[in-house]
């Protein structure tokens, strides 16, 4: 997908109401001496799909658990739909009526069926969806009376998503919704999330997959080590690289850095691990120039690859490590 297509996707979401449904300021969450979230401030608007992107251990799940009311922060403030957690048991329960959550890992009782589990969760909410509608929506009709123990990973995630939606929530929190799933299963989940956003609900998503954040989210907050290090639309974040494409060169010997930098269309060139990473506007136009410069200097290239700049590249640029690293 090109950068323009990314932009198109984001803009196709209905224009968001500017009232923040989630507001947090200077959030600090710690477990003993380990600080998991270190001063997070953000506002999430009604109707937007907001993503928290970062590697494992970055603090995304911790932040979201504070939003869900599961954790109390050490300091800082959190407001969900204008309410604060912890004022009263009744107040907390009222707020939970309006939220839907799919945790990172929930193992439902293996012996109960899909229908029985959704019905159980439906009973907790004052107002909600018809169970059979939800089963159709998530493509679980064939597995309606199947026991959880017999479901595939993708089907279990869809079940988790059904339970998150059963109360007709205003805000839906999805923590790593497609981790460990095969491509088809991921696509089904993505399509379901896109439908939710079209419906006007607010979705807060955590993920370490950049294509997931890029595809689904109107805005993405990049998190590393408990801090928010960038916040913008996916397209906006990629633009900060200054170039639309990445060229990776693997080669031995003395790299003529200055000559390559002078090739028109090359924005930035730097070494990372044992590769040379060049940020260019258009690889089709710029690549011949680069290869020419190298051969003139007598250099032999082992391999070349190019790709569209992604959020992963943004993350690497900001932190020096990949999203897959801990």
């Amino acid at each position, binding site marked *: 997908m090109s950068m323009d297509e990314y932009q198109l996707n984001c803009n196709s979401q209905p224009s968001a109401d500017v009232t923040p449904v989630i507001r947090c300021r200077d959030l600090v969450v710690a477990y003993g001496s380990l600080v998991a979230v270190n001063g997070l401030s953000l506002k999430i608007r009604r109707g937007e799909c907001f993503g928290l992107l970062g590697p494992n251990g970055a603090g995304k799940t911790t932040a979201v658990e504070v939003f869900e009311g599961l954790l109390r922060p050490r300091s800082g403030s959190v407001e969900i739909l204008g309410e604060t957690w912890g004022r009263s048991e009744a107040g907390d329960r009222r707020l939970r009526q309006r939220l839907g959550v799919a945790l990172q890992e*929930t*193992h439902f009782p293996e012996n109960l069926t899909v229908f029985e589990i959704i019905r159980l969760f439906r*009973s*907790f909410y004052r107002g909600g969806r018809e169970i059979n509608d939800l089963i159709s929506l998530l493509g679980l009709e064939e597995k309606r009376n199947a026991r959880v123990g017999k479901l595939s990973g993708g089907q279990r995630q869809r079940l988790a998503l059904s339970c998150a939606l059963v109360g007709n929530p205003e805000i839906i929190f999805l923590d790593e919704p497609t981790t460990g799933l095969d491509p088809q299963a991921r696509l089904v989940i993505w399509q379901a999330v896109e439908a939710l956003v079209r419906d006007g609900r607010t979705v807060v998503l955590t993920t370490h997959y950049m294509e997931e954040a890029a595809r689904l989210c109107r805005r993405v907050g990049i998190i590393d080590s408990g801090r928010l290090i960038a916040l913008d639309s996916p397209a906006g974040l990629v633009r900060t690289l200054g170039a639309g494409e990445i060229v990776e060169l693997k080669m031995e010997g003395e790299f003529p850095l200055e000559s390559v930098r002078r090739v028109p269309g090359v924005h930035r060139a730097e070494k990372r691990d044992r590769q040379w990473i060049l940020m260019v506007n258009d690889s089709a136009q710029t690549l011949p120039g680069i290869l020419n410069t190298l051969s003139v200097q007598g250099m032999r290239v082992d391999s070349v690859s190019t790709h569209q700049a992604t959020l992963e590249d943004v993350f690497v640029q900001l932190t020096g490590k990949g999203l897959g690293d801990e």
Partner: protein
Amino acid sequence: MNKDSARRPHPLVELTKARFLEFLRDHSAIFWVFVFPILLTVVLGIAFKNQGPEKIEVGFLGPAAEELVGRIDAQKPAGKQGQLKLTLMNPRQASAALKSGKIDLIVRTEPQAGGTPMITYQYDPARPGAQMARLAVDNLVQRAYGRIDAVHVSEEQAEEKGGRYIDFLIPGLIGLNVMGSCMWGLGYAIVDSRRRKLLKRFAVTPMNRSHFLLSFALSRIIFLVMEVGFLVLFAFLVFSVRIQGDIFTLALVALVGTAAFSGLALLIASRTASTEAASGWMNLVQLPMWLLSGSFFAYSRFPEFLHPWIRFLPLTALNDAARAVMNDGSGISAITWELAVLAFWSLISFSIALKIFKWH
């Protein structure tokens, strides 16, 4: 899109239903809760079957033995003689038989001047049958050589209802069953829910916390009726074990017992995070009661100073109360101590558990 709040399923009903279905579909749970007590009942019931009054076996040796046995046989007095088996033996046979427990008593005879033989009784006074054998045989020996009883006596033999071992065992098994199924069915299940992050998942819904715990209580009561009813019915059909007392009093005892053990199970489950730790605690709590509370044999056999402590254990209280109702036909007034002990354990453990319960 917002539909039918009127047709919304009720959370307490759904939670209880879920507990129920989970249990019924768990094959190993069904085995331990229903099949295992029945197996125990059958095996122990057969092994300890009443075989009438105990037989006493006696060995006679020495030169005067044959004449002695002949005189005893000729007497054929009423009473215990029918249980006695008198055998002539040589010394080696006799000591081997006494050592291995085949006979309870050796009677050594030596002829002496004056008509009556010299008799020595050889036995181990610590063995249960030996004292009785010595008394019975001596009675017969004296009569055989001419003793005349001074007082004429008659006997009335009546079989006490509810006095068999199986009658003693069944209330003990009821107690063990209630304890075990509360610990594993409630305690372990909660810890497992916590481990699977199910408790956490419930914690983010508007589910009422007390509905969750109440559903365990309700499902426990339903299971209790099934488990105890099944065991009592089986014992009645196969071993003619009867409830001498009132069935409603028995139900009350079972209920209060369930409350006590559910409370203990909940206490253990309130903060335990791993199923290994839960298993450990539950075994630790149950083991002393398995050994001491008198499920299989009377705890009166233990030294006196232990008795007050033993009587304070919840399983002891439950066993004693169940026995009182089933075997002695007691009413509530006779089991107030036991009911009080169970109520105490129930109140203490529930109140602490609810305060410290961790949802995630």
